[in-house]
C-alpha cells in the first residue's frame, strides 16, 4: 500500500510538469490550430534562465526560488512572443504544413543555438528552494515534489481564471471559436495571439524550472523527451482543451511511473504510448475533447 501511494505521488509530481507543458501546446492549438513544436525548447530555455538567475539568489530560500521562477517565466513569455512575431505571424493564413515546418525549424534553431551559447555539457541546477523530506508513516514526501504540485496547481487555477474571468480570456475564446467573427466585433487578433504565446511560454518556463529542481541536470536537448510526452498528454486529454491537457499530463506521468516501478520497466514508454493509442481508438477526440467543451 505504501509503495502504491509513493508511486502515485511520484507519478503526480512528474505528471504535473507534463501538464504545465501540455497547457502551452493546447492553448496555441486552440487559438491557431497548429502545433508549436518550439514549445519544448522554450521549456529548456526556461530552465537555463533559472540556472543563471539561480546563481545570483541565495540558495535554499523560498523567495529566492520564487524570484527564479518569476524571472524564467517573464523571460520565456517574452521569448514566446518574439518567436510568434518573427516566425509565425508572417505565415498567418498560409497552409498549416508551412507553419508546422517553420515550428520544427524554430525548435531546431533553439536547440542548437542552445548548444552554442550554453554548451552541450549538462549543468547542475542549483537547489533554489529549501529542500527537506517529510515522512507520513512510511511515505516519504520531498519538499521539491510538494513545490512542483503546489506551483503547478496554482498556475492552472490562475490560467483558468484568466481564460474564463477576464476580458483578454474572453477574447482568446472568441478567437478560438471564430477568428474572423472575433475581428469583426473588434477583437485585436494580433494582441490576443501574442498574449496566448506569452502565457503558454511562461507556463513552459515554470515547467522547466520545476523539472530542473527535481532532476538537477540540464542540457540544451533536455526539452525533447518531456516535450514529446507533454504533446502526447495534450492529445490524450483532447487537444485545444485546457482541463484535458492537465488531466492528460497527470495520467501520462502516473502511468509511466507505475510501469517503471513494475517488472516491465524496460517497456515503460512502449506501454505508456500503447495506452495512449487504445484511449484514442475509443475516444478519437481525446478524453475531454468534445465539441461542446470550450476551446481556447
Amino acid at each position, binding site marked *: 500500500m*505504501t*509503495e502504491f501511494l*509513493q*508511486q502515485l505521488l*511520484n*507519478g503526480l509530481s*512528474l505528471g504535473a510538469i507534463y501538464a504545465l507543458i501540455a497547457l502551452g501546446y493546447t492553448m496555441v492549438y486552440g487559438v491557431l490550430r497548429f502545433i508549436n513544436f518550439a514549445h519544448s525548447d522554450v521549456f529548456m530555455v526556461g530552465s537555463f534562465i533559472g540556472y543563471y538567475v539561480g546563481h545570483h539568489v541565495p540558495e535554499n530560500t523560498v523567495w529566492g526560488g520564487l524570484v527564479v521562477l518569476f524571472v524564467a517565466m517573464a523571460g520565456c513569455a517574452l521569448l514566446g512572443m518574439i518567436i510568434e512575431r518573427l516566425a509565425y505571424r508572417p505565415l498567418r493564413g498560409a497552409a498549416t504544413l508551412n507553419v508546422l515546418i517553420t515550428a520544427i525549424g524554430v525548435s531546431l534553431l533553439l536547440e542548437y543555438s542552445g*548548444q552554442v551559447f550554453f*554548451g*552541450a*555539457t*549538462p549543468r*547542475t541546477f542549483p537547489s533554489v528552494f529549501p*529542500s527537506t*523530506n517529510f*515522512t507520513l508513516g512510511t511515505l*516519504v514526501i*520531498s519538499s*521539491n515534489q510538494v513545490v512542483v504540485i503546489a506551483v503547478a496547481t496554482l498556475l492552472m487555477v490562475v490560467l483558468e481564471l484568466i481564460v474564463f474571468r477576464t476580458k483578454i480570456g474572453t477574447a482568446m475564446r472568441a478567437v478560438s471559436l471564430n477568428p474572423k467573427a472575433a475581428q469583426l466585433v473588434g477583437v485585436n487578433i494580433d494582441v490576443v495571439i501574442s498574449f496566448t504565446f506569452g502565457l503558454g511560454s511562461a507556463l513552459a518556463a515554470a515547467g522547466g524550472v520545476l*523539472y530542473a529542481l*527535481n*532532476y*538537477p*541536470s540540464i*542540457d540544451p536537448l*533536455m526539452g525533447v*523527451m518531456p516535450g514529446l510526452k507533454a504533446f502526447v498528454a495534450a492529445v490524450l486529454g483532447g487537444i485545444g482543451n485546457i482541463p484535458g491537457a492537465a488531466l492528460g499530463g497527470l495520467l501520462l506521468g502516473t502511468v*509511466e*511511473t*507505475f*510501469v*517503471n*516501478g*513494475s517488472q516491465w*520497466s*524496460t517497456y515503460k*514508454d512502449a506501454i505508456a504510448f500503447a495506452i495512449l493509442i487504445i484511449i484514442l481508438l475509443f475516444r478519437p477526440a481525446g478524453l475531454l475533447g468534445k465539441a461542446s467543451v470550450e476551446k481556447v
Partner: protein
Amino acid sequence: MKTPALLLALVACTLSLSNGLAARAAEPIKLGEYASLTGKEAGFGQTSHHGVVLALEEINAAGGVLGRPLELAFEDNQTKPGESATVVKKLISRDKVVALIGEVSSGRSLEAAPIAQAAHIPMVAPAATNPKVTQTGSYIFRVCFIDPFQGTVMAKFAKNDLKAKKVAILSSVSNAYSLGLAKFFKETFTAGGGEVTEEKNFSEGDKDFRAQLTAVKSAGVDAVFVPGYYTESALIVRQARDLGITIPFFGGDGWEDEQLLKIGGEALNGCYYSTHFSAENTDPIVAQFAAKYKARWNGEVPGAFSALGYDAVYVIADAIKRAGGTDGPKLRDALAATKDFPGVSGVTTIDKDRNASKAATIIALKDGKALFFKTVAP
C-alpha cells in the same frame, strides 16, 4: 656567365633534394582520436583527451618515435549514437591516421571497431570495458581491464566489504556496458551465495528514477548496484536519498567523473565505485604523472580516463618503435606482442584476446570527494 648559373642551379638542386630528404625523415606519424568532447558524457572524452595530448607532447619533446614527431587528428562524437562511425571513417579516409585511440564508452567503441577492423587500422580503446569490443576483430585492442573482472571485483566487494546479502540492480537498457556489467556482477554475486532480489531498468537520458527506486525500497535490500554512467547514476542516488533510502549504492568505472560529485554531492556519502586508477595512489610513477598532468591542465586532477588515454598513446608509440614503421599489419602484430609495458594505470600486457589485465581500484565517496579505498589485484 654560363658556369656560375649552372653551378647555382646544381647547388639549388642539391639543397632542395637534401631538404626533401630531411622533410621526409621528419614526416609526422598521424594518430587519430575520437572521443566524446561534448554532450552528455563530455567528462569521459575531455579527461581521456587531456591524457592523450599530454603523452603526445612528452613523446614529441623527447624526439618523437623513430625520429618522427607524432601528430594528433581528433574528432568529437558529441556523445551521440552513430556519430563515432562517421568520425572514424573520416579519420581513416581523410586524415590517413595509422592508429586510432578511442573510446571510453563501450557502446561507442563498438560502433567504430568494425570500421577500423575493415580498414586494417589498429584501434586501442583506453577504457571500453565490455568484452565484445575487442571480439570485433584482430585489430582492436584495449589497455584496461574488462567487465567480467570488474563485475567479479564489485560482487566480492558487496559480499565482503558491504556485507550485503540481498542486492538490487539498476541498469541502463540502451547501454552495452551497463547490461554487460550487470550480468557479470549477478553471476559472481549469486554464485557466492548472495541474492539479487530486484532488477530494474532505465534508459540513457532518463531523469526520473523515483518509480524504480520506490520498488527497490520496498524490496528491502542491503545495497544497490548501479552499473550506469555518471549523469544518471548521480541523479539516481540523489533521488534515492530524497525517498529516504539510506543504503549504499555502488557502481563501476562509468561513475568516474567530476560531474558525479557535482550533481550527487553529499547524497553520495557511503557510496563506492570501481575504477582503473586513483591519483591518490602513492606509487612514484603515478605521483610523477599526476604532477605533470596538473601542470599541463591548470591544476586538474587526473582521473582514470586521463591515465588510460595517456597509457594508450605510449603503448602505440612503443609498438610503432618495435614494428619499425606504421604499416597496419606489422603495427597490429607489435601491439599484440606488448608485454609488461609500465604505464601509469598499471603494467600493460596484451593477452591473446587483445585485452589488458590490470588491478581495479575501489573509490569511496564522502562529502563531495572521491577517496581511495583499496586496490584489487586481477
